[in-house]
C-alpha cells in the first residue's frame, strides 16, 4: 500500500523533498555556531580537491596569458625602464667618478703632506694633446691666476714625475712630459748605486716608453726589470726621491760609452686629472755629482745632463 502510494505521488513527494530539505538545511546552517556540520564537511571533502585542481589549472592559464599573450604596454614600459636604467647608470658612473676623484685627491694631499719640504700648488688637467696612436704627448693645466707658476717648474703627482712646465699663457700652462724627446732628468736606480739621465724617447710607436742613459761602472748589483728609477734632484728641476718609472727590460743596449735601459713611466698620462706643481724646493746641497767627483768615485755621468752641462 505504501509502495502504491509512493508510486502514485512520487512527483509530489520528490518536489516536497527537493524544496523543503534545502530550506531546512538553510535554517540549520544559517544559525551562528562554532565548527562545521557533517554536511559542510562532506561537501568540502568532495569539492576541495576539484577546486584545488581547477585553481592550479587556471593559475597556469593566467600565467600563460599574462606572461606570453597579454603584453600590451610592455614595449612602453620597457622603454621607460631602459630610460630609467640609463639615468641610473649615469648616476652610478658619476658617483664612481666622484669616488675616484676623491681617492686621487686624498692621495695627492697625503703626498703633499709627506713632502713638506716642497712648496706645491695643485692644478687640474684640462686638456691632453695625443698622437694618432693615442699616446699623450703633452698635457695642459688650468693654473688660474697663480703668479708663482712659471716655466720650467716640475709637475708631479703622488705616483711620480709628470714633466715640467714648458709654457705658460694666461690661466693655462703646457707641460712637457718626461717621455718627451726633449726631456731629461737626472736619475738613479733605487738601491743599485748608479746614476744617469732619464731621457724621453719620443718615438711614435713606443708609447709611454723612454730611455735612460746610465753609467754602469762599479755597479755592484745587477739591474733587473721592475727596478724603480728615481729623481736625484741634481738637475734642480725635479725634487729628489720621486719615481720616474721602472725598468722594463733587463738587457741594455749600448750607445757609445753608456748603457740604455727602457723604462715605463710611473704616471699614466692618459688618466691624469690632478697634479701638483712644485713652485719651490730645496736642492740636495753637496750631493751634486760633479764630473770630477764622479770620476773619483769611478762613476761616469753624462756631462750634458749635469746642471752645469
Amino acid at each position, binding site marked *: 500500500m505504501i509502495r502504491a502510494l509512493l508510486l502514485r505521488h512520487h*512527483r509530489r513527494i520528490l*518536489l516536497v523533498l527537493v*524544496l523543503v530539505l*534545502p530550506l531546512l538545511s*538553510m535554517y540549520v546552517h544559517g544559525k551562528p555556531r562554532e565548527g562545521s556540520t557533517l554536511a559542510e564537511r562532506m*561537501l568540502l571533502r568532495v*569539492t576541495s580537491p576539484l*577546486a584545488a585542481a*581547477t585553481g592550479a*589549472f587556471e593559475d597556469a592559464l593566467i600565467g600563460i596569458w599574462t606572461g606570453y599573450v597579454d603584453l600590451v604596454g610592455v614595449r612602453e614600459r620597457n622603454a621607460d625602464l631602459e630610460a630609467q636604467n640609463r639615468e641610473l647608470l649615469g648616476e652610478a658612473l658619476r658617483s664612481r667618478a666622484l669616488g675616484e676623484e676623491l681617492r686621487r685627491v686624498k692621495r695627492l694631499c697625503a703626498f703633499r703632506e709627506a713632502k713638506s719640504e716642497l712648496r706645491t700648488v695643485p692644478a687640474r688637467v684640462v686638456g691632453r694633446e695625443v698622437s694618432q696612436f693615442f699616446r699623450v704627448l703633452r698635457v695642459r693645466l688650468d693654473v688660474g691666476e697663480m703668479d708663482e707658476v712659471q716655466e720650467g717648474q716640475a709637475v708631479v703627482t703622488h705616483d711620480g714625475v709628470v714633466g715640467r712646465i714648458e709654457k705658460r699663457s694666461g690661466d693655462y700652462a703646457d707641460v712637457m712630459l718626461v717621455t718627451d724627446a726633449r726631456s731629461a732628468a737626472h736619475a738613479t736606480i733605487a738601491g743599485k748605486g748608479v746614476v744617469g739621465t732619464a731621457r724621453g724617447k719620443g718615438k711614435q710607436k713606443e708609447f709611454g716608453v723612454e730611455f735612460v742613459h746610465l753609467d754602469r761602472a762599479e755597479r755592484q748589483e745587477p739591474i733587473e726589470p721592475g727596478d724603480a728609477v728615481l729623481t736625484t734632484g741634481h738637475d734642480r728641476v725635479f725634487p729628489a726621491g720621486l719615481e720616474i718609472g721602472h725598468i722594463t727590460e733587463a738587457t741594455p743596449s749600448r750607445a757609445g760609452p753608456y748603457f740604455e735601459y727602457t723604462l715605463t713611466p710611473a704616471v699614466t698620462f692618459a688618466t691624469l686629472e690632478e697634479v701638483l706643481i712644485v713652485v719651490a724646493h730645496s736642492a740636495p746641497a753637496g750631493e751634486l755629482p760633479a764630473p770630477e767627483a764622479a770620476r773619483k768615485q769611478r762613476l761616469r755621468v753624462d756631462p750634458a745632463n749635469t746642471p752645469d752641462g
Partner: protein
Amino acid sequence: MKHLAWLLCFVGLLALEAPLLRSAEHAWLVPDVLVLGAIYLGSRGDWAAGLLTAAAVGLFKDGFSLAAPVGVFTEIGALGFLATRLVGQRVDLGSPMPTMATCGVGTFIATGLFLLFELIFHRAFGAFEEALRAVPSIALGTMLLALPVFAGLDRVGALFDRGERMRGVSRRLR
C-alpha cells in the same frame, strides 16, 4: 545516465568557476553556472531526474562556495528547474535568442532569490549592494556562455540517446 553525465559536466564548470569567484578581481565577470544548469535541465531533462540533477548542481555549488548556508543554491537550482519547466511551455528554449533571454532574466531572479534567502537565513551577509551591482555583468556572461554550453551538453546528451537507441534495437533484434 544522461543526467549523470550532465551533472558531471556542470560540476566541472562549477569547479572552473570556483577559483574565479574567490578572486575579487574576476568575480563580477563569472557567469552563473547554476542558472545555466537549471535552465538547461528544465528545458531538456526529464522531470524527476532533471529536478534531482538541478538540485544536485545547486548542492555542489553550495559546496564550492560555502559562503552561504548549505541549501541556498540547492533551493535555487530546484526552483530554477521548476520555473524553466513552466516557461518552457510558452517559450521555445531550443532557439538561441529565447534561451539567452531566459538565462539573462534567470540570473536576475536567481540573484534575487539568493539575496532573499540570505536575508532570511543568513543575517551575517552584508554585501547586498555589491551583489546587485554585479548582477548585470554576471547576467551578460551567463547569456553569452549559454549557447556554447547548451550546444556541448546537447552533444553529450545525443551520445547517450544514441547509445540507448542502439541498445533498444539490439534488444528487439534478440
